[in-house]
């Protein structure tokens, strides 16, 4: 049986409710941490575990915690980032819907380690059902003295509040999220200072993804070294992968880091292969922001080694022949997919979601969208292709937050690996329209 950590009790009866969760061993890490460990020793276990941020950046969580300013005398905050908006990613929604107490348990133990007495869960506004679920779950935990004053008689107090967003991808960026939580537009802040020093209300703050916090209870129960023993190299533990696109079995899968990509795509245990017995054309492995890879480079690295589901293996080859694990949003495209059309829809997304602070992103995403629209709809020129590359280079690294990079990488990589398809769109504009890639037969070209 493959190792499961987050979803190990998914099929336990009643796992959604407090009683069922408790019966399956839930909340033992709260007892253990609050009654027999110091905050620092909890943090040390997370450091030893090598747990890395599961929102996309992959920064070591324990290290992030250690940067928190503990001497300022100001209140400290933990914020759970549940603003899951990266196209292709739906793992946090799944986790919160199925095992909401796991997140609350993770938040309690993590807040204890950070010395935070207030934690906010920032949930994207569209998740109206999840918001209700979380509020009920917190109330159940409160009834059982796991949230509120003097938790389990240990003297430690914690309030957890659910904060609703209102439809802005940018609020998944931690400083954009903090601005939004302060009741403002989600414009990301210049760093430094980092939130660990100046965060929410100017106070030291840690922002962690849902999946990251949900891994903490297992680490505390079993020890950081046990967690570090799972996975491969610096990619420790397990990862939730949300798989979508042209596969037989879309859904959320928990994999042990190091699983071969080929096995993930073709095994019946996971994606179950490409639907309609088509061939694999390309994969966007970590949410729409990471570089797209053609089938030969996603299954094997440029060196010919099998590509594995881990931070290191997926990024092997850098941006020339590699990609990133990112958020775990695994988007699979079959041989009939139009790469140009797909890129146009992605770029439209970034244009729509740019907060507008930095001109390279605000203007550049719009230009890229327009040019891609032109190419896809049969009005492209050959020099448009180089123009796209040029714009993407001028956005990359020139913006306050990584949304600029996230918009640039898909464009640069699609042209790097599928340049002939862009050229073909320019030379034979009618071909693509006739084949109407990705759309049903009745589709009318806009």
């Amino acid at each position, binding site marked *: 049986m493959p190792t499961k950590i987050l979803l190990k009790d998914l099929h336990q009866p009643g796992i959604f409710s407090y009683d069922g969760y408790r019966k399956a061993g839930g909340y033992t890490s709260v007892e253990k941490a609050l009654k027999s460990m110091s905050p620092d020793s909890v943090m040390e276990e997370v450091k030893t575990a090598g747990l890395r941020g599961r929102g996309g950046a992959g920064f070591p969580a324990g290290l992030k915690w250690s940067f928190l300013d503990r001497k300022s005398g100001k209140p400290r905050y933990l914020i759970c980032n549940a603003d899951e908006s990266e196209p292709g990613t739906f793992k946090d929604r799944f986790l919160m819907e199925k095992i909401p107490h796991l997140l609350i348990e993770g938040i309690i133990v993590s807040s204890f380690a950070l010395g935070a007495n207030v934690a*906010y869960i920032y949930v994207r506004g569209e998740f109206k059902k999840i918001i209700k679920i979380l509020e009920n779950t917190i109330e159940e935990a409160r009834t059982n003295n796991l949230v509120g004053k003097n938790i389990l008689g240990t003297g430690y107090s914690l309030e957890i509040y659910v904060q609703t967003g209102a439809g802005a*991808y940018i609020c998944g960026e931690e400083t954009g999220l903090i601005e939004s*939580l302060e009741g403002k537009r989600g414009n990301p802040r210049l760093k430094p200072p980092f939130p660990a020093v100046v965060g929410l*209300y100017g106070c030291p703050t840690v922002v962690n993804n849902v999946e990251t916090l949900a891994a903490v209870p297992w680490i505390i129960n079993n020890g950081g070294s046990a967690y570090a023993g799972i996975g491969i190299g610096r990619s420790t533990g397990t990862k939730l992968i949300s798989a979508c696109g042209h596969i037989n079995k879309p859904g959320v899968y928990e994999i042990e880091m190091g699983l071969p990509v080929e096995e993930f795509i073709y095994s019946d245990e996971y994606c179950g292969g490409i639907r309609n017995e088509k061939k694999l054309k390309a994969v966007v492995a970590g949410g*729409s922001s990471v570089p797209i890879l053609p089938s030969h480079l996603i299954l094997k690295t440029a060196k010919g080694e099998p590509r594995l589901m881990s931070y290191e293996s997926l990024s092997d080859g850098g941006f020339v022949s590699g990609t990133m694990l990112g958020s775990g949003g695994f988007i699979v495209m079959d041989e009939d997919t139009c790469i140009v059309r797909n890129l146009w829809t992605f770029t439209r997304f970034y244009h729509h979601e740019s907060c507008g602070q930095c001109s390279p992103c605000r203007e550049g995403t719009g230009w890229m969208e327009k040019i891609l629209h032109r190419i896809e709809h049969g009005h492209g020129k050959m020099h448009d292709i180089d123009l796209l590359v040029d714009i993407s280079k001028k956005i990359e690294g020139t913006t306050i937050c990584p949304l600029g990079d996230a918009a640039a990488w898909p464009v640069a990589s699609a042209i790097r690996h599928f340049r002939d398809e862009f050229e073909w769109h320019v030379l034979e504009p009618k071909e693509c329209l006739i084949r109407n890639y990705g759309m049903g037969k009745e589709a009318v070209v806009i």
Partner: protein
Amino acid sequence: MVTNPPIIFSTDTSELVKKIITRYPEGRQKSALLPILHLAQAEFGGWLSVPVMDYVADILNLKPIEVYEVASFYSMYNLKPVGNYVLEVCRTGPCCLMGGEEILQYIEKKLGIKAGETTQDGKFTIKTVECLASCGTAPMMQVGDDYHENLTHQRVDELIEEFKNC
């Protein structure tokens, strides 16, 4: 002559507003702005008019511009009237791969309006939205609190029929 009802939260909502404000430290009531705008939109006809935004500004002791700039930034707030049922159809990459654009066109044709428009009877508005984290069950749309997933023409027909009869 039609007179507009006064803009004032119901007793229940007012209680909820007070409760929400206590979630933040003293003097940080501005943090309650996003949640309260959601309540206001739900209570005052599904959109945020200028008088409604001014009312919220008043409650939170903010300048009206602080509310306007937030309301116009976030895509979930409607700044003009919408129909009783807002069909929020996902048009981001993963849904498009599974025929999301075609579903959007089908809905537009069926209702005789384009995305961003409202039917004459005020029943339906079509709104395109970006990724709602439902990519494994694409194509999809959100209506109110509910996600409608794995959409087909038949499913769209059923849903619209259901809403019409509500």
